[in-house]
């Protein structure tokens, strides 16, 4: 598989990243190197290997269904300048 500049532009677009021409060229080249490395794994015979569901050797890390106190209002809005009457102010999204 070969990554083209179109692919890079598409990925940047859905991830909402702005890339200039120089960066686009750079990532096209770099991602191709990375993917070629990964493609090497495809050469291995994995016929008898169970698929990996998850990379961590842990399972069922969960807690009981108990409520703990939430943040107070002052803490909730501590990191924003966009609080308004208990809400966060955000740009309007027009859907139709």
């Amino acid at each position, binding site marked *: 598989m070969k990554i083209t500049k179109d692919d890079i532009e598409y990925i940047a677009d*859905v991830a909402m990243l702005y890339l200039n021409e120089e960066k686009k060229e750079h990532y096209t080249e770099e991602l191709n190197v990375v993917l070629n490395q990964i493609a090497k794994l495809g050469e291995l015979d994995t016929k008898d290997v169970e698929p990996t569901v998850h*990379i961590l050797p842990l399972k069922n890390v969960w807690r009981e269904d108990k409520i703990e106190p939430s943040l107070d209002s002052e803490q909730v809005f501590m990191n924003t300048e966009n609080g308004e009457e208990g809400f966060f102010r955000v740009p309007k999204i027009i859907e139709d």
Partner: protein
Amino acid sequence: MEYEAVIGLEVHAELLTDSKIFCSCASKFGGAPNTHCCPGCLAMPGTLPILNKHAVELGIKAALALNCEILPYSRFDRKNYFYPDLPKAYQISQNDFPLAVNGYINIETEQGIKKIGIKRAHLEEDAGKLIHSEHGDYSLVDFNRSGAPLIEIVSEPDLNTPREAWLYLTKLKSILEYTEVSDCKMQEGSLRCDANVSIRAKGSEKLGTKTELKNMNSFRAIERALEYEIERQKRVLEKGEEVIQETRRWDDARGITITMRTKEEAADYRYFPDPDLPPIVIEKDFIEEVRSKIPELSHERKERYIREFGLPEYDAGVLTDSKKLSDFFEECVNKYPDAKKVSNWIMVELLAILNAEGKEIEDISLTPDNLVKMLNMIDKGTISGKIAKTVFREMLDTGKDPSKIVEEKGLVQLSDEDELEKIVDIVLNENQQSVDDYKNGKDRAFGFLVGQVMKATRGKANPKIVNKLLREKIDG
């Protein structure tokens, strides 16, 4: 050409846990905006999700009640998209390894039982709530729902009519309510449904291009939106044009679906495993433990009501449609064993009022205790069946004890024979014509006389005694 619709439904139901799915904030509906939030709910850097075990239990419970296969391994993935109600810019969901697959539910159509497949059921977190500000060019967000636990239930495209979609949803809601997995309140958003619909020539195997419908706020709206969309697609095809794959929004007031303008051509969620959450491994014992907690479901209750109480099938069906109504009925029957009488009051009086006023049993003040008290008062002759209707209405509105209502309104039944005899004499004197008619064989005249006595006592006379006195006086 004759067409056939192919419909699949995606239902989201909020799970009835106390806390959220990945943090310990309260998950209950309502509350002042942004008061059920922790750094996790707000996606502060460095926060980590920890799974709520009860959410997994409820998910398994629902999946078992929907006849699904529970997958031994399941995993959480990140669904990436940008929207202001999603502070992490990804939703934790399950993509490749859902909690459960391959279930079904049976619906009762006019043509008989139809099995509707369930493709998958998986757990995910809810997003916040966007409110469009009236002043200014911006929106407001409340993150109280952010991280509330959801189960998404995806049907197979086995539904062929809007009516079948309605039947499927009604059955699914009943199962989720009976198992106490969700309270399924559409008006509070704890049950939501999107629909996929396409049409094809009847008998054809090939699927047509589908559209996705959003923004339906009731089961009736879903049925109407599907009816509209199927007709729209027919018109498109008959004009020789093609149906475009797109998402359309239902406009309930205008009764039409409208294309939603979407920025990106196709959604690309770039799912990948969430490294913050280890997989869920479900052992057989755990499944069996959850299975043992599944209560009697609606169709089982219905059969029991027919068998044990001798109720007609229709009545048993109506009583068990909603779990809350069915629970109410059972509580009454526990205290007042004449199930048919209880059923009658619920079927005739209660449901007439609820339907007329668009209410549910939980919206009114009537308690099983008070209904039972009232039935006992009728049996003892304290009030007549007719007066009971007045008392019943008052109990519905105020939740007052029936004996208190009777006392306050002076509704006690008049059973004193001497007093009733005086009234009967007056009525007979004033209605000689009816007395003669009755003697000449006109039975209806007797009923008229009883009515006159009831009228004179404003409905309080004991009808049994009135009947007896009238017969004694006329027949001699």
